[in-house]
């Protein structure tokens, strides 16, 4: 974090737990895709993998605990589970184009919770992504 230990203590559990969910999804997917399973960790992958790799954790429902959310996966992927699976209990995710590496290097140290994440996403949004789309996604969390 920006000020290391003191400021890490201010990070809420939503960020402290959702970020590792995203990192686990990314690293494990990268490893197994390199071993010959091209859709590992995508929304089409199921059966062998478990949380959060099954279906890229896109089944995360809005009424589940926010701590272990799919937010960082949804910032990176290009799949809107609410629309593609026609299910209103899933996040409406029109955001894509972020990378975990980019988030970590540029603004994760300034993120403490949902509000600061929303602000940082708007300040660092990829080309073609609007503030309204970011608001729509973050309203799920």
């Amino acid at each position, binding site marked *: 974090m920006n000020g290391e*230990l003191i400021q890490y*203590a201010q990070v809420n559990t939503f960020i402290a737990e959702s970020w590792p969910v995203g990192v686990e999804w990314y690293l494990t997917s990268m490893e197994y895709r390199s071993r010959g399973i091209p859709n590992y960790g995508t929304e089409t992958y*199921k059966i062998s993998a478990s949380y959060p790799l099954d*279906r890229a954790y896109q089944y995360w429902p809005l009424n589940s*605990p926010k701590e272990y959310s799919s937010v960082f996966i949804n910032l990176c992927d290009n799949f809107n589970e609410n629309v593609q*699976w*026609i299910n209103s209990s899933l996040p409406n995710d029109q955001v894509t184009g972020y990378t975990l590496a980019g988030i970590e290097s540029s603004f994760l140290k300034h993120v403490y919770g949902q509000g600061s994440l929303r602000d940082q996403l708007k300040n660092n949004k990829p080309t073609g992504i609007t503030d309204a789309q970011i608001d729509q996604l973050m309203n799920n969390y």
Partner: protein
Amino acid sequence: MLCFSCRHEESTSTKTFITNNSSHSIEIIPYYQGVISNVDIKYIAPNSTLPILTNHTRGKSAGYSYPIYLIAVDSIYVLYDNLKTVVYYKENSTGNNPKAITYDSSRSIYNEANYIRKITQEDKRSISNEYTFTFTEQDFLDAKK
């Protein structure tokens, strides 16, 4: 001196069972974008129970049961004795089969509300859930040839 540490990890284990209380074999056949997902087909012998899904997640919660796993599946065919079928529609389905069992039916396999949830273990930082959906003889009688 201030001392910070990671919070204790919480965990949830969830098992889902499908019980066939009828005297007929059952095959659960999920469709995704018009195609049968062969690896997802499940066979349940008469008067038996199949553990259909087990998962482990972080955090302490009600867990993720089979219906959540079915979110991506467009519709489900249940085949009795390789003879009679019942179609189940997911929530907000656009299908037009008047005999299909819709999400809000008390017999829908999609709807977690139709599963009996049992907490089999719980302590401060972990919980184990079991969900069970039961097919009955009446479900077979209501199926069409």
